[in-house]
């Protein structure tokens, strides 16, 4: 009996994985059509990194050997490359869901034998991973030219292993805001606040180690650090914090945020007002 239930669950999981894979593949194909968008984003990244290289070089007095709160100039610039690659990799989920609710396209998703959240997660992850690698390549090339090659050893393994969790947390945070579209007419204000929190207390612009002690203590209790700070800090400073501890914190936030997303979705979809036709 137990083995049959286990077998059924395994089969269900396999079927869901295949569907998610198919959604991920078609999303990737569709991405190939947005070449101009990628060029624009890559150019923007080039500009941002150039500005920050100048800023941090001034802060370090151009001294490559100087260490500020455990970070050299090279580590800081590569840290920025990693946080920017993750941030710019995250697709605009809030606008997408809001539009689906507003123009009624959500109906097309809900007539399929597929979880609505699961569909968006598969599509999101495909797009986010693809964009992450593109931005990492562009940003990496700039950083390499400005501060030298990334000799981070195991830090790379830390980066790639923590990035999946980081992107998942970003998805869930964005989905929570996006699902508010089922109640309120406009989510752009909330999305703006979310992004600014990622930029600041998420450690996008500078590592949390450089922030005042009381703020660091607050950040430790927020999900944003698990999204940007963990993978980027681990990449440039492997061993500064136990990898396992960071995985556990990411997993805990994923569990909490996923529960919030499911609760909001179940409540929201029951009062859905599909517009138009």
């Amino acid at each position: 009996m137990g083995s049959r239930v286990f077998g059924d669950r395994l089969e269900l999981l396999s079927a869901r994985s295949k569907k998610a894979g198919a959604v991920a593949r078609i999303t990737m194909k569709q991405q190939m059509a947005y070449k101009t968008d990628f060029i624009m984003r890559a150019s923007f990244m080039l500009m941002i990194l150039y500005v920050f290289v100048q800023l941090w070089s001034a802060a370090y007095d151009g001294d490559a050997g100087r260490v500020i709160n455990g970070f050299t100039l090279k580590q800081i610039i590569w840290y920025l490359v990693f946080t920017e690659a993750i941030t710019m990799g995250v697709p605009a989920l809030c606008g997408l869901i809001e539009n689906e609710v507003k123009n009624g396209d959500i109906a097309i998703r809900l007539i399929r034998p597929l979880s609505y959240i699961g569909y968006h997660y598969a599509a999101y992850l495909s797009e986010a991973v693809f964009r992450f690698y593109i931005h990492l390549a562009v940003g990496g090339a700039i950083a390499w030219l400005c501060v030298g090659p990334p000799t981070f050893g195991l830090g790379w393994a830390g980066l790639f292993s923590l990035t999946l969790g980081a992107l998942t947390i970003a998805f869930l945070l964005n989905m929570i805001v996006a699902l508010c579209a089922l109640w309120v007419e406009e989510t752009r204000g909330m999305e703006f606040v979310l992004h600014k929190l990622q930029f600041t207390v998420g450690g996008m612009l500078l590592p949390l180690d450089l922030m005042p002690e009381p703020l660091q203590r607050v950040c430790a209790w927020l999900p944003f650090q698990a999204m940007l700070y963990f993978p980027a800090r681990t990449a440039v400073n492997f061993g500064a914090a136990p990898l396992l501890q960071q995985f556990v914190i990411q997993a805990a936030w994923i569990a909490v945020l996923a529960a919030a997303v499911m609760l909001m979705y179940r409540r929201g979809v029951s009062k859905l007002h599909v517009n138009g036709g």
Partner: protein
Amino acid sequence: MLYREEAPKYAKGAGQVVALQTQALRKVFTVKRKDAGLAGSFRSLLKPSWEEKVAVRSIDLTVQRGEMVAFLGPNGAGKSTTIKMLTGILHPSSGEAKVLGCTPWREREKLAFRIGAVFGQKSQLWYHLPPIDTFDLISRIYELDRADYHARRDDLIERFELGPYLHTPVRKLSLGERMRCEIAVSFLHRPQLLFLDEPTIGLDVVVKQRIRELIREVNRDEGTTVFLTSHDAGDMEELCSRAVVIHHGGILLDAPVDRLKREVLNRKIISLTLAAGYDASMLPPLPGTEVIAGEGRRLKLGVDLAVTDIEAVLGTVIGTYRLDDVTVEDPPMEEIIAHIYGTGG
């Protein structure tokens, strides 16, 4: 409801079963009310007021398997909202519904394997990719066996004549080509029940005709139940054996299409573009025909089919004027509904 034909009997022993059944299905939306002007916007911001909008008042309906039912009504009558409740997209405010034995809003994913839906105003095809990619995605989502999928896909491609543009990005297809792809995709997983929400909206007469033929063919060959909403009476006339007309969220009429044609759809509109200007004195008296509009080179005639027929009217008109163009149409749904009210059902 003004008129309703005797409820369809379940033919016990004849193998007929119910495809869908609803009981007092109702949907009320809460809509924010805003007064006009800037002051109204501020008032709405500080003290929002809400009002209830009844989209579907109460729908009691039974459709048997294999039936082709037209669900008609003017814009805002509640057709799409009803379909969305029956497909599990919307949760009703009250009432019950069973679709192929499932409660749609509670068993959405389970039901989705057995039904198909086409929303004429919404595309399920991936805009930048060719239709073949959407076919492949749908086959994975519906967990189709690969060999079965390929055979089914090839069959649909042949029937719907999709071959020439199967590998063309959707954004480059015409509306008619896209709609053929949309409907073919919705048949891929062999749905037992197909919901078509305005499948011919915006299409020209020839494409409309072709799409109707294809739907009829699949219904005949595969026994697919078709539940079609439209504000085009032609869809009903050519596809369905039964028509349910709704208005203001309630059923106004439920009758066989033949009877409807005889008693309600007994009027056609002939729109003519004349080669020269319209001269009323040239047109001889035509029994059962009224001039709705005649101005410049345009002439619009209303024909009562109980009194005369289209051929007779056209014969007289062609003998009188030189024509550039002729269109024969059904009267708009609003007129049909007014007629139903006028005749007391």
